[in-house]
């Protein structure tokens, strides 16, 4: 099969032929139909997060089941599915207490001594986050996918596979935003826009979107932002404190920088909670003004929206189909797999919301 192989950080990916193994007992072979190009792919491409190479990036996808392993009963050939990097084992402490996105069990991967899922000329190609979407086929654990309604368009379903779940989930699950509260979201890429949309669904009273790109702030309004701030033109923290008359109940950082994580904390009112969704590079520390803790301000991380994706994603599909979740506007361009490097370049400039790869 063809796949976009990354051999060296910061180098273009090449479309190459690779071999994919047969489904093991609990594995599913999926033919992806649509794959989002996500900002976290870029973190791994540029090396701010290390990963084994060669690899095939891509982790936001929707597709059709092609074949299933001997013990798989949850899906069958032809089912429509969304994949998720939060593959859960189903029996560790985290899974059994409802925190499947924190499962760190390695059993959803193949063991080091087993034949790799993807290889090339007998050498392993490291599967990215147990998924590797930028390929004609994906061989994944049955706990890395969820079945969805067949009337859901695949390109928009793909977005639910990462950015929607990450943003909306951070609002619903990690932070637990309550109706009527004051919310600010820093960064209006795919994840930030999803957080804004989630805050609107949750019934937040005030939703302030912060970005440096005006076109993204316009999108933020469609998602439900009540106010927008261009942080390139004004002091975002001061503006948020003023608009909220004393600070937010909830803030969300959806970029992954020290400065913006610290701003998210500074935008809080008494008792507020800042949720950092962005991937801050390994080795970077963030600083807080200690006395603020006396006002019971909190800061926390969120990984993949603290999801229980088998439950959450079908609900997000329903939200889209009944008009509450705005995904049509988020897709800025539909491209081919061979255009992947251009999509990565576009992510670096930060202008476009999201490119989605459509397979023929």
């Amino acid at each position, binding site marked *: 099969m063809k796949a976009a192989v990354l051999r060296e950080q910061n180098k273009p990916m090449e479309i190459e032929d690779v071999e994919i193994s047969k489904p093991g007992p609990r594995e599913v072979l999926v033919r992806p139909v649509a794959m989002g190009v996500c900002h976290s792919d870029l973190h791994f491409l540029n090396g701010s997060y290390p990963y*084994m190479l060669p690899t095939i990036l891509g982790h936001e996808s929707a597709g059709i089941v092609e074949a299933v392993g001997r013990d798989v009963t949850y899906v069958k050939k032809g089912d429509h599915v969304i994949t998720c990097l939060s593959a859960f084992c189903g029996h560790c402490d985290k899974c059994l207490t409802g925190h499947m996105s924190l*499962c*760190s069990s390695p059993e*959803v991967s193949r063991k*080091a001594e087993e034949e790799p899922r993807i290889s090339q000329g007998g050498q392993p190609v*490291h599967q990215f986050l*147990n998924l590797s979407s930028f390929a004609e086929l994906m061989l994944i654990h049955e706990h890395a996918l969820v079945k969805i309604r067949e009337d859901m368009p695949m390109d928009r379903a793909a977005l639910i596979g990462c950015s929607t779940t990450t943003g909306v989930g951070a609002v619903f699950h990690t932070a637990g935003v309550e109706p009527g509260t004051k919310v600010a979201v820093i960064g209006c890429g795919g994840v930030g826009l999803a957080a804004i949309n989630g805050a609107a669904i949750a019934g937040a009273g005030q939703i302030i979107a912060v970005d440096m790109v005006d076109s993204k702030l316009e999108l933020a309004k469609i998602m439900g932002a009540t106010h927008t701030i261009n942080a390139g033109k004004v002091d975002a923290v001061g503006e948020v404190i003023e608009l909220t008359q004393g600070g937010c109940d909830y803030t969300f950082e959806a970029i992954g920088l020290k400065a913006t994580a610290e701003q998210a904390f500074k935008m809080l009112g008494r008792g507020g909670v800042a949720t950092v969704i962005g991937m801050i590079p*390994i080795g970077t520390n963030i600083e807080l003004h200690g006395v603020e803790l006396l006002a019971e301000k909190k800061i926390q991380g969120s990984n993949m929206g603290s999801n229980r994706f088998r439950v959450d994603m079908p609900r997000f599909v329903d939200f889209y189909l009944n008009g509450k979740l705005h995904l049509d506007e988020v897709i800025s361009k539909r491209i081919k797999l061979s255009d992947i490097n251009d999509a990565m370049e576009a992510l670096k400039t930060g202008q476009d919301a999201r490119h989605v790869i459509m397979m023929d």
Partner: protein
Amino acid sequence: MAEIEVPSEVTGTVWKIEVAVGDTVKAEDTIMILESMKMEIPVEAPAAGKITKILVSEKDGVEEDQVVAIIES
């Protein structure tokens, strides 16, 4: 001759050790692969040299900044 410590950048589990004591490595060669939050994260040689000690085994848990191997260069 200098002894160089090879630290892990992240908390995780040792998935696969790619070198043996006595092997010669180049800077940025993969010493071992850690599994952390289901990501395969390489521990790379900070400098070229000879592996003199491997301080962990496969399936061991490692902490951030823990020294996992020693290189003599």
